[in-house]
């Protein structure tokens, strides 16, 4: 409900559908044996097929088919046992064939769905319309010459999966959650690295607005959004633009728009007379792709545990909240780390340590989890020391900072620095007696009814012990001694 937008004339609802282009992880291209590595010298990873030389024939890379099917299965989607490659015809300098080989009427993957996690812990199911395979185009470089464009065909022919959602999203936040979840799924199964900076994952957003409950409005497509932050900005800007146009009494013109991240606005990209007419037809160079059900079943059986299943398991097995579980499963690496820490230990304590101390320290040091100086077993060792009463939770934070700094095991640091918690009741009783003896007026005050003073006594003893006194025991002893004189 809160997703509705307020205009001058009433409330509006945003309707968003996303087309995500995900680069498939494979060594070679979709139809040629040229390499796909990022960052090679210009035109070094180009075969004559990728350069559109006459007479060259495409030959399908079976690993890319496997990746597309695995992705479809991970999206709970229907796998089409027959799919057809089609030519999408248009001219652009970075596409030397004069057509992109794509799939049109018969894509390899049909309808599916994914469950997205919203910040309040709520979930929402977003429909997937289809997934198809296609070739990427080359790269145009506009900034090396004032009047020329430079073309690098290294990316030409690299395999993309275009994943099309249904228009099921109602806010920029939901769109962001969708891309986040989709990215997590792709990374879990290893079909795309999800690197938005390098362009391995990019989204086109179809945005329209309507009065709540009414028919869909005319949409505009915002092309090539290469970060989640820009996507949110672009969607919000675009919806506001459309509402203003309609409220001013005009109509939305269906068009393709670009997001200018510098100005934070979208602008029209192609003029109307240039409206696309791709004249798709089945590619005569490629036979229909046929898959056996047994092949699909085998791939399904080999999929790893996916984020949604893992989240449910973490909630049930470890008693985590929906929010905590969704944070911990967002990356497979994080989930594995957490599971190692939590195994055989207090899982809520483990979740807290991973999510607050560890993530906090990593963020501050600008390190990724794989670069963490504290390994999962090592963090587990620290939690064991808290659990068996060797150190207090407060001291543990100092020990953790030390571990993060030096990479040493918790037990060694505790030993070296003499940080063991004092749980010897004789020593603690002496400390309690000393503080009470030194502050008779406060003792009297407490006994006169000011029971809040117990906190002050606690503080004195903890301070005197350098934080090492066992706080539960001190608390208990203090109550006994102070209340004894009532």
């Amino acid at each position, binding site marked *: 409900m809160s997703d509705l937008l307020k205009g001058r004339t009433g409330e509006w609802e945003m309707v968003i559908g996303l087309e995500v282009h995900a680069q498939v992880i494979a060594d070679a291209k979709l139809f040629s044996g040229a390499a796909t590595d990022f960052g090679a010298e210009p035109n*070094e990873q180009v*075969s004559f097929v990728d350069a559109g030389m006459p007479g060259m024939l495409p030959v399908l890379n079976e690993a890319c088919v496997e990746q597309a099917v695995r992705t479809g299965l991970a999206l709970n989607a229907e796998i089409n046992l027959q799919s*057809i490659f089609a030519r999408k015809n248009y001219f652009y300098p970075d596409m030397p064939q004069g057509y992109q080989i794509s799939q049109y009427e018969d894509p390899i993957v049909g309808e599916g769905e994914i469950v997205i996690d919203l910040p309040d812990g709520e979930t929402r199911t977003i429909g997937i319309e289809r997934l198809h395979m296609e070739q990427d185009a080359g790269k145009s470089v506009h900034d090396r010459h004032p009047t020329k*464009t430079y073309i690098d065909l290294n990316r030409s022919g690299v395999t993309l999966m275009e994943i099309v959602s249904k228009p099921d999203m109602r806010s920029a936040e939901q769109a962001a959650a969708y891309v986040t979840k989709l990215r997590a799924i792709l990374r879990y199964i290893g079909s795309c690295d999800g690197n938005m900076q390098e362009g391995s994952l990019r989204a086109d957003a179809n945005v329209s607005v309507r009065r709540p409950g009414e028919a869909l409005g005319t949409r505009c497509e915002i092309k090539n959004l290469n970060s989640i932050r820009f996507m949110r900005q672009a969607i919000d800007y675009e919806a506001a633009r459309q509402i203003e146009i309609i409220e001013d009494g005009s109509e939305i013109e269906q068009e393709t728009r670009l997001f200018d991240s510098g100005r934070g606005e979208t602008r029209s990209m192609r003029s109307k007379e240039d409206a696309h007419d791709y*004249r798709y037809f089945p590619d005569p160079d490629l036979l*229909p792709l046929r898959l056996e059900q047994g092949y699909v079943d085998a791939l399904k059986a080999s999929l790893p545990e996916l984020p949604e299943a893992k989240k449910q398991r973490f909630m049930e097995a470890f008693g985590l909240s929906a929010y905590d579980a969704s944070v911990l499963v967002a990356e497979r690496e994080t989930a594995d780390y957490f599971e190692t820490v939590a195994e055989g230990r207090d899982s809520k304590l483990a979740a807290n340590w991973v999510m607050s101390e560890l993530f906090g320290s990593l963020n501050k040091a600008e390190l990724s989890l794989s670069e963490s100086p504290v390994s999962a077993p090592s963090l587990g060792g620290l939690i064991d020391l808290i659990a068996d009463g060797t150190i207090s939770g407060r001291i543990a934070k100092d020990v953790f900072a030390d571990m993060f700094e030096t990479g040493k095991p918790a037990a060694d640091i505790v030993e070296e620095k003499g940080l063991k918690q004092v749980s010897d009741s004789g020593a603690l009783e002496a400390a309690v007696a000393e503080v009470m003896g030194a502050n008779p007026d406060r003792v009297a005050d407490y006994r006169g009814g000011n029971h809040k003073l117990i906190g002050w006594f606690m503080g004195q003893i903890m301070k005197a012990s350098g934080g090492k006194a066992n706080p539960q025991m001190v608390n208990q002893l203090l109550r006994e001694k102070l209340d004894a004189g009532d």
Partner: protein
Amino acid sequence: MSLDKDTVRRIATLARIRVDEDALEPLAGELNNILGWVEQLNEVDTEGVPSMTSVVETEPFKRSDTVDDGGKAEQVLANAPEEAEQFFVVPKVVE
């Protein structure tokens, strides 16, 4: 189905083929003849018949995911009208 002059002009533009204004009308006639000829196929009842995609029922040949091509920028660029720093060079394209 019948093509008019405007449609022929549009198809020519999409295909990046320059057709002189006075050639459009005769070309429309020629194309309409071809379309008319192909349209005879509509006389055959194909209800329920799956489309035939190949004359030989055969599996498409697939390649394994092995890098065995590329590393020949010089040959790839050999026919380029203009090149620089190992890039193809074309007139400025700005969206």
